[in-house]
């Protein structure tokens, strides 16, 4: 497959692995946060950790849109489908995330709510056109990557006068979240989470460009390397980060030059600013309230805003007790530190969002990485596999 196989080549991986092994200084540890769930997924799926020296550690960041959505917003979505009897269109990943009382969209669907899994906003628009007598709500989640398609859907809905279509907007912003992590007491004062540098977002940066990271690279003196999602991208970016750390630099470098430019995709940015505006604050699972970290639909599109169209009830939303998703999302804990992990919480029976999404750290640990943790086959078996 062109443009894919080139970035998964074993011989090149071995060469980069060799370069990393030569670059790392012994007696020093490197803690690199991969912000995006896409990177977490790639690291586990391709076994990238196997090719790293023992002193290079990946810290899994909160860049999984499903994982960071607070329970309250999920409960609102369930309410839209159940009480307001809309056709709720959602990306598949959201279906199994447990809300308050472990009520998920998939359970609501089983109980008769009309919830449909879609692959794009265009599917949701089509469903709205085909069901003119029903209210159709698109459950919009995601970072800057999924925001422009939602903007386009809203523009199309207004152009076509699609009066039965609206968007429940939960779009969030990456730079604000990274800055929040760096300002958190765990990182700044307590030192309980060490982050020496960032593997910067891949698809997000294709939209926003590499410039938005320059402020905090400078402010917090942390190097950032924008990295593609293919395994060779991750390895090359890791090498670039280690070089920066060794040389005491803290710059924004771009490994993903085949897609990301400094200024990003101006057309997409214009669409987004046409339709959305900043929320003063938004709650993230794990990070709490983060100022100016999310988008809401502008007033002139209010008629297509599900939060305006439907009266959502006040509710007391609760996560599953002792689920460590919030700490895992901040990088404070690893999935294996959670006492629910692999016991009551598995991908078949998830207690928290990190176990649901394939980009969630818990699901990635469970699906791809268990034998590394010693929980299953243990270290001796790993050697057997490698032999």
């Amino acid at each position: 497959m062109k443009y894919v196989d080139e970035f998964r080549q074993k011989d090149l991986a071995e060469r980069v692995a060799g370069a990393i092994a030569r670059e790392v200084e012994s007696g020093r540890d490197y803690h690199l946060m991969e912000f995006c769930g896409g990177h977490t997924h790639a690291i586990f799926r391709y076994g990238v950790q196997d090719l790293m020296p023992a002193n290079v550690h990946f810290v899994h960041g909160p860049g999984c849109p499903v994982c960071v959505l607070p329970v309250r917003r999920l409960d609102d979505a369930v309410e839209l489908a159940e009480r307001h009897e809309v056709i709720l269109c959602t990306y598949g990943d959201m279906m199994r995330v447990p809300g308050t009382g472990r009520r998920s969209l998939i359970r609501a669907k089983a109980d008769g709510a009309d919830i449909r899994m879609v692959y794009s906003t265009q599917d949701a628009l089509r469903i709205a056109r085909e069901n003119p007598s029903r209210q159709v709500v698109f459950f919009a989640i995601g970072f800057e990557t999924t925001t422009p398609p939602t903007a386009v859907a809203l523009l199309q809905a207004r152009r076509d006068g699609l009066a039965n279509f609206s968007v429940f907007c939960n779009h969030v912003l990456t730079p604000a979240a990274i800055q929040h992590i760096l300002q958190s007491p765990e990182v700044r004062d307590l030192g309980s989470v060490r982050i020496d540098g960032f593997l910067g977002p891949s698809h997000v940066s294709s939209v926003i460009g590499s410039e938005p990271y320059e402020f905090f690279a400078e402010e917090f003196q942390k190097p950032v390397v924008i990295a593609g999602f293919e395994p060779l991208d991750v390895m090359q970016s890791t090498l670039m980060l280690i070089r920066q750390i060794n040389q005491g630099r803290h710059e924004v470098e771009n490994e993903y030059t085949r897609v990301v430019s400094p200024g990003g995709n101006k057309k997409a940015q214009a669409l987004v600013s046409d339709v959305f505006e900043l929320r003063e604050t938004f709650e993230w699972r794990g990070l709490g309230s983060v100022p100016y970290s999310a988008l809401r639909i502008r007033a002139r599109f209010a008629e297509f805003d599900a939060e305006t169209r439907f009266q959502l009830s006040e509710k007391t939303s609760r996560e599953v007790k002792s689920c460590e998703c919030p700490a895992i999302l901040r990088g404070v804990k690893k999935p294996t530190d959670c006492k629910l992990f692999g016991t009551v919480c598995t991908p078949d029976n998830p207690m928290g969002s990190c176990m649901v999404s394939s980009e969630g750290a818990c699901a990635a640990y469970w699906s791809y990485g268990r034998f590394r943790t010693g929980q299953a086959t243990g270290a001796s078996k790993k050697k057997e596999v490698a032999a």
Partner: protein
Amino acid sequence: MNAIPTDLPGRQGAIDMTHGGGGRAMAELIRDLFHRHLGNAHLAQGNDGAVMELPSGRVVMSTDGHVISPLFFPGGDIGCLAIHGTVNDVAMMGAKPLYMSAGFIIEEGFPLADLERIVHSMAVAAREAGIAIVTGDTKVVEKGKGDGVFITTAGIGVVPDGVNVSGDLARPGHVIIVSGSIGDHGVAILSKRENLAFETEIRSDTAALNGLVDCMLAAAPGIRVLRDPTRGGLAATLNEIARQSHVGMVLDEGAIPMKRDVAAACELLGLDPLYVANEGKLVAICTPEDAGAILDAMHAHAQGQEAAMIGMVIEDRHAMVQMRTKFGGSRVIDYLTGEQLPRIC
């Protein structure tokens, strides 16, 4: 009987509640449609059940329900799929499939022409697989209570002496073979789903595998495990066997056959081809001594030309399936979580 007859009364019509009511309309449907296509001496007796002679040996029985959407897809339809599914389940026990039953649940309003297409396809598939449909049942449900047609088939076969195939017989040191490219069926279905339409040339691999199994068992009667990786794909099948046999497995990603188009479609949709359904592929586990003869026999058969050794059985009390990635790392291949794609078969 290769051509679809055109003179069936009511061919332009649709199923209504009387077709399941036990009266004259039902009798006519059975006679003019089902018997006409599937006819054999057992069906012609018109009894409530079929009386059959079985060759000596151990009898295998298996059943499979089919609810696929869409009913017609590139490479097949629910009719041939309902035959292949059960023939393969019987064949995967090392048995020669002989007889089948077919139960239809049809939704009111379903076009008779479509039903005839489906039954014709079943007849062709049964004949090709050398199996007779000896008993059947028809029920009609109200409009909105079904989705066109659901078909349940059950099959009986006999295991030849000297053959002992079972999911609990994999042992460390055995080799794992797959008969051809994986993921074709699931991607073919996906390409036709209303809300996921994209252009692709992929056709479902739906096929009866009893002929291939015959050739393999003739080459090496000592095959330990046979299984067709349907729902949940290769990953689910290998996990099932690993748990049944209390062993682990190590796969070599680079050795697993996969069509380029299937790989590309999965990449685009974020699916892992290891979890995508197949309907005409099998997994075999055998001793390393038998592997050469089995692979030779498979390569000589039309359905096994791309057969490949994809991994080894190892000792592992956690019964994990692991894979060496093409990239040079390793990962765990777990069961599929949830439903990657509903109503695939």
